[in-house]
């Protein structure tokens, strides 16, 4: 009796996990299937095989992709600097109100992006009405909000790395005559650089797909990929949207597969 019972366990595990994987892949497969066919209104199955939905993608999608990448890169760069500084100060600074400061820096991660979007919208319209700069519908306004969200992402990963940091390395460098700046650039920074890059990777991925934060802050007609896709799906769902989405998911897959080793080592380290 027992062996069959044991086999049942592994069979159930295989089947449940297999179904879960199919569930994860299914919608992406259907996005790709729907993208193949003549440009125009999408329905399934497509009437004929054609790649014209790809060859007729309007150039505006290129601009909105570049805008999203530019916003992601600039806010990630800002978040990398601010997040690393915050992590160094929290790990090494011996701050008195450490707990308070840390939860303050973490708060953009915990408040829903939708709420941050609403808050920044109301902030910018108050600033404009009070005679300040009008940041509504500008990339500057978007970048300010996205940087605030990117900062804790980098901070959390770097902070986890610094918990295992051997601070005697810094003392050794200074004992050997290195200046504080030399110590930081030649000893500390190279050691934490992989953690900074991993944090940047997550921050960039989040920024480039953050609809609820951007939706309130983009102006009418201002190109930005996730918001343009979001609006097109709701109001103008053509095969072009499927083609663009397929390209986006293909690029994501390639990027993740390339970064996979680094990602898994980060997950192992954070656990």
């Amino acid at each position, binding site marked *: 009796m027992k062996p069959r019972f*044991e086999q049942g*366990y*592994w069979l159930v595990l*295989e089947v449940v996990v297999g179904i*879960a994987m199919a*569930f*994860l*892949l299914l*919608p992406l*497969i*259907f996005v790709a299937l*729907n993208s193949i066919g003549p440009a125009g209104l*999408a329905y*399934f199955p497509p009437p004929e095989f054609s790649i014209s939905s790809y060859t007729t993608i309007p150039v505006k999608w290129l601009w909105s992709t570049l805008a999203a990448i530019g916003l992601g890169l600039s806010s990630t760069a800002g978040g990398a600097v*601010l997040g690393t*500084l915050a992590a160094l*100060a929290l*790990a090494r*600074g*011996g701050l008195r109100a450490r707990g308070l400061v840390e939860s*303050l*820096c973490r708060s*953009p991660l*915990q*408040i*829903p992006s*939708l*709420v*941050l979007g*609403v808050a*920044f919208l*109301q*902030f910018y*319209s108050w600033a404009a009405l009070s005679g300040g700069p009008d940041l509504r519908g500008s990339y500057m306004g978007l970048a300010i909000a996205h*940087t*605030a969200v990117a*900062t804790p992402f980098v*901070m959390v990963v770097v902070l986890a790395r610094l918990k295992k940091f051997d601070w005697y390395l*810094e003392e050794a460098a200074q004992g050997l005559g290195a200046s504080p700046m030399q*110590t*930081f650039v030649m000893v500390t920074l190279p050691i934490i650089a992989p953690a900074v890059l991993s944090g940047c990777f997550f921050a960039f991925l989040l920024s480039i*797909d953050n*609809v609820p934060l951007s*939706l*309130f802050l983009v102006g009418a007609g201002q190109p930005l990929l*996730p918001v343009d*896709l*979001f609006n097109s*799906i*709701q109001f103008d*769902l053509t095969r072009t949207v499927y083609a663009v*989405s397929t390209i986006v998911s293909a690029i*994501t897959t390639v990027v993740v*597969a390339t970064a*996979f080793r680094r990602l*898994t080592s980060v*997950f*192992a380290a*954070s*656990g």
Partner: protein
Amino acid sequence: MSRHVYARLIWAPILYLALSLGVAVFIFLRNSLYTSAGFGSIVATVSASNFQKLVSDSYYAEVLGETILVSFIVVVISACLSLPIALYLRHFSTARARIYLVIVVASSAMSLVVRALGWISIMNDNGPINGLLKALHLIETPIAMIGTNGAIITGLVHGFVPVFVLTLFPVTQAIDRSVEQAAEGLGASRWQTLFTVLIPLSMPGLVSASLITFAMCMGAYTTPALLAGGKAMLFPILIQQQAMVVLNYPMAATLAFVLTIIVLGITWSSLAAARYFEPKEAR
């Protein structure tokens, strides 16, 4: 560098966050106490009228209740799918297990907009499900799936399973293999080992992943908005409508404030739960 140099570094992020996020949160909290004069204009008289409306009009409580129910169902289904995945990845290091891990990690990085589009393509009136049912003459008119809570729950589960697995994975991975072997050596079947050893030892991960997923689900906007198709109403969609359609900034701020309190409450209780489960010697 010495400690006081490092301590000074905190001023850059603190000043940045205070001047951007801090001011934004202040303005929006103040707006929640003002009243709307319609079309985005605000009357600057302090009152609790928005909060009174929130309590007296049962519509808001209904939407909030619906959002909590949907989030709860999503968490339960996500847990039931994620625990087997985490246990599978813990047990096997085959090529298939590696592919599964790549699928989970790639899914977690995949655009939520694209993933919701996938569900729309499957569930819409001209989609494969309705097409198949029509071809089999089981239905005459297509079943409207978009806009139902079922569609939203499916999309949200799809959105959160990767996050759930990646939160749970380190915990199941850390379970000592000798404990499992000891249970088997003492004559426990695989099922007994699962229920008396693996699940209890996965509990810290299950609890924190569930709370994180619940908090993220309550605040999720992209997936519900796309799969609601203008029909279903959840709390985040309500906030977006107040801010962008009705242009009632004070009411949007009030609703967003309520959502934030709920989400932060859940997040903090998940942190407290993590501390509770943390082994004493590791503190």
